[in-house]
């Protein structure tokens, strides 16, 4: 497993890609979930009782930054099918969508635009924020192990 990660990230292009996914995703989700505020000045704040949500965002961002470059590596280097890429992207998107709505500007815009349908969708994403993020993490973990297994076979890596 470590060898597979080393193989992918020995190429600096994939390290840069991972950083390029992790940093914007982490900061974006922390802003949307109100752990970071930009105005009137930049300040970070983890309200009591919101620690789990914060940890899930960090895990989600880290896994996305790990899994997506590995899948791109598979596609680029091994010319594999793009099928397994879907798991990483899907996991990242549903994880990001959960909790991004809520009572903030995104939820407000969705509800104002889509009315009662928006209200229902926002309520669902807010109510099940933790389970949805956990599901997204599970999808990313499965995608990670599938990708590692696939790379081991295709690159003849001995574990």
């Amino acid at each position, binding site marked *: 497993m470590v060898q597979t990660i080393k193989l992918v990230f020995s190429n600096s292009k994939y390290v840069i890609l991972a950083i390029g996914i992790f940093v914007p995703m982490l900061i974006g989700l922390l802003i949307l979930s*109100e752990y970071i*505020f930009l*105005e*009137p*000045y930049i*300040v970070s*704040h983890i*309200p*009591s*009782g*919101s620690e789990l949500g914060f940890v899930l965002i960090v895990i989600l961002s880290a896994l996305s930054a790990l899994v997506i470059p590995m899948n791109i590596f598979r596609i680029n280097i091994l010319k594999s099918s793009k099928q397994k890429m879907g798991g990483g992207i899907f996991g990242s998107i549903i994880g990001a969508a959960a909790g991004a709505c*809520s*009572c*903030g*500007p995104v*939820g*407000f*815009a969705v*509800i*104002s635009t889509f009315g009662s349908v928006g*209200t229902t969708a*926002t*309520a669902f994403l*807010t*109510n099940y924020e933790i389970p949805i993020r956990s599901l997204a993490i599970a999808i990313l973990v499965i995608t990670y192990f599938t990708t590692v297994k696939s790379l081991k076979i295709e690159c003849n890596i001995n574990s």
Partner: protein
Amino acid sequence: MNKNGVIIGVIAVAIIAGIAVFSSPSSETVNLDMGRTHGTISTAMGSPILGNPSAPITIVEFGDYQCHQCYNWFHNTKPAITKEYIETGKANLVFVDLAFLGLDSPIAAQASYCAEDQEMYWEYHDILYNYQGSKIDDGWANTERLKAFAENLGLDMDLFESCLDSGKYSKRVQFNTQQAKEYGVRGTPGFFIVGPDGQQQLSGAQPFSVFKQIMDSMI
């Protein structure tokens, strides 16, 4: 004789109508100051003022009783503001509804004004944020629960129920929500901190340090 009878009759009807109007529960006196503004914000239809009405700073909070970020602000930031600014007379607070998150949000806001009729607005407001459910529209703020909260506070239930069931404050909550949108509030909680020389808009459940810095610069 007939003329006098008619005049006496009219007076009697007017007196009876007056008594009926002033004794009716649906026309309970509400302390609405229609000209009440803080900075550029009209708070006439909002909550009563918490704290010293002549404090130099007013925090206008736009919130939704089902919003978990409002819950976070209520539990993490508001206590320090209350202790250092409201209780010391440096600031006061007005809550204005931006009830948009779910079907129970406007009803909960209406219930708070029904409690205001019995001079228990802030007590009821606190109960709603203390007992906020983990999910939007899961029943924690349905009519039955709102009545149960009122009963726990020892409110006159006949008055409270007639107020809530009649939708007496439905228009007031709608007006507040509409006004919040017009002031550019795009989520809850949203704040305007109004000082003697200007006002500052804040979005989200920001920490106490942010409020402190803004308010200290205004005093």
